[in-house]
């Protein structure tokens, strides 16, 4: 990627939008929400990482992945494995037939820690694994698919199949993975209790910070030459290929970035919610994440974040108020948004709200200018 200057990457608009988002996440929400609701927002934000990756892959690159849950899950599981090992010290698991191993292994008659769990005693290894394992996996999928020019619907179906396969694998190997229950009852991170309120605040801020970092990265990518190439590829892949670019490499790259974002989200999810289960890896959650992105607007990196927040907030509110009817309300929301605003909330904003604001701004300016020129005329 060629060097891009700060001014060229971030227009004044972008700085305003990032500022508003940061103010919302760092100041407004923590001020007005109690810790329970804030923790929920923190959970929603972990999905926003995935939605952000999808904007890059799908909105910009035209690669629709229906298997982002795989990367979210891998990241989450890597974090959960570390936390679970820390929670399974011989002292607190002395009731088991084999103390010192995670409880679900003991329930499945496993008597020693499997080799691939061993390295997860180390936090640096776990942190590296959170990023590297999903990215490497995405790279392998990417090479296998894009080098053979598999794309579009076929790619979407294959990613969906991978999500399904991984779920079956996790559920089937319950002695090693915790099965349907997942890895539960995570307590501390290097002795620091992640279940206390103060820990929740810290994890929330960490999550927001990481999200903003990813957002800036995403912005850098979209504004760079690479971003323009992605859009060109999306709209006319053959022309880009004829112009001498290796299309597959760009696709692999952006798919890997999406996977890494999702993995960070997964790890933050595990930390904030306190467990990880295969219900985040499968087809349904993966499609749900695409919906977050679609509602927010798949061409807008800000839209993805607001979309995720809005959909999840709606989900929580509807299901609290109408425990038996909320799914219909959610269905109506999705149908409504995709029918009426195919570009999502971001499209709604850019076609109605933004022109209105700009108009008012111009009017204000021209009035001022008039005043100034009138004063000048008087002078």
């Amino acid at each position, binding site marked *: 990627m060629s060097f891009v200057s700060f001014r060229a990457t971030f227009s004044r608009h972008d700085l305003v939008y990032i500022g508003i988002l940061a103010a919302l996440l760092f100041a407004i929400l923590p001020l007005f929400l109690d810790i329970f609701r804030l923790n929920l927002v923190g959970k929603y934000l972990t999905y926003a990482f995935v939605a952000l990756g999808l904007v890059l892959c799908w909105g910009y690159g035209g690669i629709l992945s229906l298997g982002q849950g795989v990367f979210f899950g891998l990241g989450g599981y890597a974090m959960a494995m570390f936390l679970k090992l820390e929670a399974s010290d011989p002292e607190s698991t002395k009731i088991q037939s084999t103390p010192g191993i995670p409880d679900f292994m003991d329930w499945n008659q496993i008597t020693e820690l499997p080799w691939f769990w061993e390295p997860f005693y180390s936090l640096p290894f776990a942190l590296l694994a959170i990023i590297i394992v999903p990215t490497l996996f995405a790279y392998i999928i990417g090479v296998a698919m894009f080098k053979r020019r598999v794309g579009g619907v076929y790619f979407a179906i294959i990613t969906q199949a991978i999500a399904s396969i991984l779920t079956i694998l996790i559920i089937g190997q*319950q002695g090693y993975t915790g099965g349907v*229950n997942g890895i539960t009852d995570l307590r501390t991170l290097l002795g620091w209790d992640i279940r206390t309120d103060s820990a929740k605040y810290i994890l929330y801020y960490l999550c927001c910070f990481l999200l903003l970092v990813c957002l800036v990265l995403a912005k850098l990518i979209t504004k760079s030459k690479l971003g323009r190439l992605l859009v060109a590829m999306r709209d006319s892949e053959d022309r880009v290929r004829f112009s001498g670019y290796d299309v597959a490499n760009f696709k692999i790259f952006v798919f890997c970035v999406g996977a890494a974002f999702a993995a960070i989200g997964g790890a933050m999810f595990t930390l904030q919610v306190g467990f990880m289960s295969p219900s985040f890896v499968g087809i349904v959650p993966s499609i749900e994440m695409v919906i977050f992105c679609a509602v927010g607007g798949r061409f807008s990196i800000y839209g993805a974040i607001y979309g995720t927040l809005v959909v999840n907030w709606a989900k929580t509110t509807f299901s609290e108020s109408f425990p*038996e009817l909320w*799914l219909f309300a959610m269905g109506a929301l999705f149908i409504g948004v995709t029918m009426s605003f195919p570009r999502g909330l971001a499209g709604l904003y850019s076609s109605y709200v933004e022109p209105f604001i700009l108009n008012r701004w111009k009017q204000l300016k021209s009035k001022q200018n008039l005043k100034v020129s009138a004063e000048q005329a008087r002078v």
Partner: protein
Amino acid sequence: MSINLKRILSLFTAGASCDQSDRRLILSFYLSLWFLLSAAMVNASVNTTGLAVTDKEVTVGILHSVTGTMAISETGSVQAEKLAIKQINDMGGVLGRKIKYIQEDGASDWPTFAEKSKKLLVNDKVAAVFGCWTSASRKAVLPVFEQYNGMLYYPTFYEGLEQSPNVIYTGQEATQQILAGIDWVVKEKGAKKFYLLGSDYIWPRTSNKIARKHIEKLGLKVVGEEYYPLGHTQFNSVINKIKLRRPDVIYAIVVGGSNVAFYKQLKAAGIDPRKEKPLILTISVTEDEILGIGGENIEGAYAAMKYFQSLPNENNKRFVKAFKEMWGDDIVIGDVTQAAYLGPWLWKAAVEKAGSFDIDKVRAASPGIELHTAPEGYVKIHPNHHLWSKTRIGRALRNGQYELVYETKELMEPDPFPKGYQ
């Protein structure tokens, strides 16, 4: 009654002279003050930890899936809990307070269960939660209940290996469902060879592990053990294996929708449960599941449970009648539904014994709580938070009910960590 506060204040401060009406005013002031204080004190003494308890009401939570794949199973539990709460309220409530419930939907999704349980405990400050169904949902909420010190009444028969101070398990743990059932087929039906079969998750696996150990202890043989993913619908290959190995008993712990395919395919392959060659013994099919399987497909199979809708005792007749009055005549009542019905009653008894809604006091009061009015008969809470209960064997009938063929004489002691079976 409105009290003229200004006048009272002036009487106190300025030492204004009292006439008759003033004296009455002061008296009424003291009286109302005394009422207020005593009410506050009564409330404080039954509720020292800030739960959602007022003088007239106590709030509890109901947390089951009413949407998603588990809704079909969990609906019965929700109905049973609402019925129990209604009956308790009609009798005057708990410690003179009516029970108000807040219902949340776990949506068949384990993290949602965790989120909603946290909401019930932290936001709504409920005095107890009746809920969860699958082990996965219980495992998801367990850390929440332990962290915020809530009380969960969990209705499902389950794999054991757990004993939380924050849960009362009103269903059977594995040994209560398995041991007596196997003893019965061995003694009464002369079974020698068993084929173990189940859905692939912790409950069937742990249950089959206990069953296998027990069978081997009796000196008998397990000729096959297999697991299929939840929702699996192709059982032809295992049916062929069963035919090949000729077990005396198919011990089936198939769960949910897979049951429909399993029993239909068994019958289509010529294994008729009525012939008892091999005999089918299940611990996962209640009356609720038979609705989906169809009575004609499973007629003749045996189930080991603690409750059947057809139990002939008076408690149960009253319970079934009340249930049908509230929820309609077509409804069937399975084992878990009855266990869910016990939850609010056991909680009420514990609260009244403790004289307080405080979680710690309710926990301390719980062991030893008895319920003579339980539809399954008499139950009692063990110090390990599980219930003493009988094991019963029922034979499936064409109309979707079970007829009782055997029950243990004594209550079975709950043993969530069975020695020699792990």
